[in-house]
């Protein structure tokens, strides 16, 4: 059994009378890359702030790397790297100065500091601007400096709040690759409202909406859980009536919609979850002598699931 790195139990957070987190519970084990997904204002940042010891929760408990975030806040902060939303930095400092400052705060041994700076500079592609003032850097560069800061202490757990926000497409791709690589050494909890990002980088997804966890599983599981997951598209040429009634009578088929396309019948077949009738449809077409030019399964992606589950709330 892998070691539990993050353990969240019934976490609730009020801002005044506003309920930001409502009874959130989840666990993350060592070396998992978990995506914390939700629309804006769902409580992602609040959760990360509680886990990093920046804000206390109203009730509930949370442990990071075996320490309680409230009563052992300092020990927790020694084990983590945190990239807050928008990567706040000191614009007047140079990148190297900033990293030295942060390394000092994180109590990294004096002899190791320059080695660690070299490592994170390499890792986050910052070689060409490591001596420039932070105020002169582009958004993407700053984001990388923030990530480098999170990494500098070689933390057990990394919290990344919207790590790719404000980056251009190339940088987004590079950052995702970096996160996937880092996932081999660190436990990562990253928040995002971009689905493709989470699908691409995370081994597990926790979806939050309005302060609640509404789903938790691998991206694949979550897609499969969608009830319309097994929808078939078939294009058949033949008499309309018999085709519809024939397909409808197949076991597991719930609904058939048709449309016409240059002489072909385009069927959209909805089935019960987990039922695949492709073979039967092909057999039926062959038996009756209909022509069949397309037969495929339309797999719902995480996006469909996300939209559905958020809309349900």
């Amino acid at each position: 059994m892998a070691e539990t790195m993050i353990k969240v139990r019934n976490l609730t957070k009020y801002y005044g009378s506003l309920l930001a987190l409502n009874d959130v519970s989840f666990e993350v084990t060592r070396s998992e890359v978990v995506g914390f997904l939700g629309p804006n204002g769902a409580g992602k940042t609040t959760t990360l702030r509680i886990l990093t010891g920046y804000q206390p929760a109203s009730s509930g408990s949370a442990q990071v790397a075996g320490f309680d975030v409230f009563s052992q806040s300092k020990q927790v902060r020694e084990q983590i790297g945190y990239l807050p939303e928008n990567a706040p930095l000191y614009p007047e400092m140079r990148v190297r100065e900033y990293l030295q400052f942060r390394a000092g705060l994180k109590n990294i041994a004096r002899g190791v500091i320059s080695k660690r700076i070299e490592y994170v500079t390499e890792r986050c592609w910052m070689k060409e601007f490591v001596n420039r003032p932070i105020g002169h850097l582009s958004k993407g560069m700053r984001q990388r400096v923030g990530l480098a800061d999170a990494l500098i202490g070689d933390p057990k757990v990394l919290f990344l709040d919207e790590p790719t926000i404000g980056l251009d497409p190339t940088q987004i791709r590079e950052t995702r690759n970096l996160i996937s690589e880092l996932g081999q050494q660190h436990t990562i909890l990253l928040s995002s409202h971009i689905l493709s990002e989470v699908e691409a980088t995370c081994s597990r997804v926790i979806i939050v909406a309005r302060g609640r966890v509404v789903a938790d599983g691998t991206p694949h599981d979550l897609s499969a859980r969608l009830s319309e997951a097994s929808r078939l598209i078939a294009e058949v040429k033949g008499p309309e009536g018999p085709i519809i009634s024939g397909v409808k009578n197949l076991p597991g088929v719930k609904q058939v919609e048709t449309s016409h396309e240059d002489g072909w019948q385009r069927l959209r077949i909805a089935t019960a979850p987990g039922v695949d009738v492709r073979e039967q449809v092909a057999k039926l077409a062959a038996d009756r002598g209909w022509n069949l030019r397309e037969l495929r399964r339309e797999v719902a992606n995480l996006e469909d699931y996300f939209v559905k589950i958020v809309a349900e709330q």
Partner: protein
Amino acid sequence: MGRVWTITRRELLCFFCSPIAYVVLVVFLAFNGYIFGFLHFRSGTESSLRPLFGYILPLVLVFIIPMLTMRLMSEEYRSGTIETLMTAPVSDATVIAGKFLGTFLFYVLMLLTTLIYAAAVYAFGSPDFGALWTGYLGLLLLGAFYISVGLFFSTCTSNQIVAVVCSFAVLATLAFLTGAISQHVEGATRVIVQHVSITYQFSEFVQGAINLNNLTFFVTTTLFLLFVSVKVLESKRWR
């Protein structure tokens, strides 16, 4: 302790990265230079820095110190760097201590520039060194107190203007207005008003005496304000 020094160093560095430090230094030097060079440094006057210590510096500092302290915490709140700072393994007290020390060292640097006046007085006269040292000791204590007032208000707000105006108002009241106020009140109130007057607490240092009452006043008020600042910073987490 190492982490306090890390923060102190960053603060000192930041003073020199921003124009504020240079503006403040220039104003400070120009003002002192004018007062000392044109009004005080002539034959026939007493060979001491008493006018500089007694009236000029404490009053100039009322304007200058809030400008140095206003960004200490306010800037961290406004830019969001407070989040990275407070999620690093440092305590609230370490942050406040580091910020205080950084500003205090910059202030010491400012005071060092006035040594040139001491040298000038020494070259052309025979000053009382005892009064010179107690004057400097008084100035260090006074500066520490001013800085802690400024740091306290900077810890309270993310708005630097609010921080600078509030610190200025409090320091100006304690430095200028207490004298006038004490004329209009009687009895115990009068004694209290007189005792919170900075000019009153500071005057004996200029005359060459280290009075335990004055020493205690500056040290305890400074420590108290630093303590309250730590508590204010702590309370920010709960909002």
